[in-house]
Structures are given as C-alpha cells and as structure tokens.
C-alpha cells in the first residue's frame, strides 16, 4: 500500500501536576498532590481563557478541553473547519461521571438524577467539547482500550489521510478516574519534525 507520509507537528501531555508541550514544561504546580480540577482551572485562569462552558464540564471534558488548548496554542484553525479529524481514546470511559450519576439515583428518598451529570456519562462527550470549541466538523471517533493502542490509532489516522478526508488530525489519550489522570495529545499533519509512526507514538505516550 502507498502509505502517505505525515508528521507529528506538536504534542502535549498533562500528567502528575505538569502540563508539557513538545517536551517542555509549560505549567506546573509545585505540589504533585494538586487535584486535577485545580490544576486545570489554574491553567485556564493563567491563560485568560474566556469560555464559561468550561465550568459546566465534567473533569474528563475539562482535561480534554485544556489538552486541546495546549496542543493548539498559536495554531490558527478556520471556523468551521471541515478538514480536522479528532480521534481520542482512553481506558476508563466516562466512569467518573458514571459514578456521580449512580450516586444521584441510589437513594430513592433523594432521587434527583441530573441531566447535566448524565450527559457526561458518555466517553465521546469530551471529544464533542473540543469539536464545539473549535467548530471542527471533521471525522471523529472515540476508542476504548486497556492501554494506549498505538497501532490502531496509527492505522485509523493514516486511513483518514490516505482517503483525503483530513489535512490535520488531533489524536490522543485522555483518561480520568478516582483522582488518577493522564492526557497525551498530538497533532498529525502534512508537515512537521517527527514522522507519524507507531514507534514515535509509543515514544510520545511514554
């Protein structure tokens, strides 16, 4: 098969109290013990992001949202954009919001399921939040795998380039449960320094 050569132009991570872009620390909180919500909010404030919907999101979506802000910093995207794909994955789906919804329905004397909680009980909502923020009307998919599945992510992304469905793809991993979290996002496009290969994806992820 004639495999298109595409590149990883930028990447970022949010892990253990540190927000990194292209390998450099952009933002960190001295204590590694900082709760994810506080870390994300501190970044939001520091960067003067004005997007009130941020505060309505569950933690998984807040994580994905800030991840996309970091990844796309200084990158101008047209609005609407029909050529940017979005492929995300994680291991714990939306289990954190699932737990919250479960709690709201567990006591029959205090039974008030919240629509604002329930809507986040789907893993792909965090992907939708990014597409809404940037009006990305391109291909999108959310995968679940126990560990980051570099091979499937690579093939799915390559497919979209080879069939001319995209000119950029935002890819990655966004996982949050019980206070534990990890985000790794990367941007694949037709120019860049690192070639888009399975090995490179594994390097970035680890």
């Amino acid at each position, binding site marked *: 098969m004639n495999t298109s050569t595409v590149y990883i132009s930028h990447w970022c991570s949010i892990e253990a109290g540190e927000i990194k872009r292209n390998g450099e620390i952009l933002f960190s909180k001295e204590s590694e013990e900082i709760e994810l919500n506080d870390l994300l909010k501190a970044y939001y404030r520091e960067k003067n992001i004005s997007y*009130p919907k941020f505060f309505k999101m569950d933690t998984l979506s807040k994580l994905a949202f800030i991840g996309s802000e970091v990844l796309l910093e200084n990158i101008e995207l047209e609005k609407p954009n029909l050529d940017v794909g979005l492929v995300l994955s994680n291991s714990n789906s939306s289990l954190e919001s699932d737990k919250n919804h479960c709690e709201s329905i567990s006591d029959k004397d205090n039974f008030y399921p919240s629509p604002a909680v329930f809507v986040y009980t789907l893993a792909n909502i965090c992907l939708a939040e990014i597409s809404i923020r940037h009006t990305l009307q391109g291909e999108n998919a959310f995968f679940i795998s126990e560990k980051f599945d570099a091979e499937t992510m690579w093939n799915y992304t390559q497919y979209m380039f080879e069939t001319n469905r995209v000119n950029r793809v935002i890819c990655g991993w966004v996982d949050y449960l019980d206070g534990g979290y990890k985000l790794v996002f990367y941007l694949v496009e037709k120019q860049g320094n690192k070639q888009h290969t399975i090995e490179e994806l594994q390097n970035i992820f680890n």
Partner: protein
Amino acid sequence: MEDLKKELKVKIIEVLNLEDIELSEIGDQDALFGDGLGLDSIDALELIVLMDKDYGIKLSDPKEGREIFQSIETMAAYIAAHRTK
C-alpha cells in the same frame, strides 16, 4: 419575595456552574436564556430538577418551563404561588 429572588440567584450560580458570574450581575428581569445568562437546553432541564428538589414543584411540559424560566422574577413568582416545600 426579595429573599426568594436572592436565594434563587445563589442556587442558579451554584447548580449551573456559572463560576464567573457575580450575584449582582443577575438582574431580576434579565433574560436567563438566549442573550442573557446564555443558558442552554441542559440548563433548562437542570432548572426543572431544581424546582422539584428544592420547592416540590413538578414540571414536565418544557413549554411551561420556558414561560417560568424567563427571568428571576417570573421564576420567583411561580415558586411563591406553587411551592410545596
């Protein structure tokens, strides 16, 4: 009535996560939806839950909700007339 209006503003800010909005920024007659506070359809559903949970008022017709949730004033008036708790 003034107390109820203030109580409602506090609750709305909390329940709808309007983190950057101050109590004083919400006028009694300001539109809650559309250009006003910029609330959306999920917020409207969340207000229906609030009416039930805190005031014992059950709303099931979304059209009815639209009338009641016009402003803090219309909400407070409806609650005062229909509350069961």
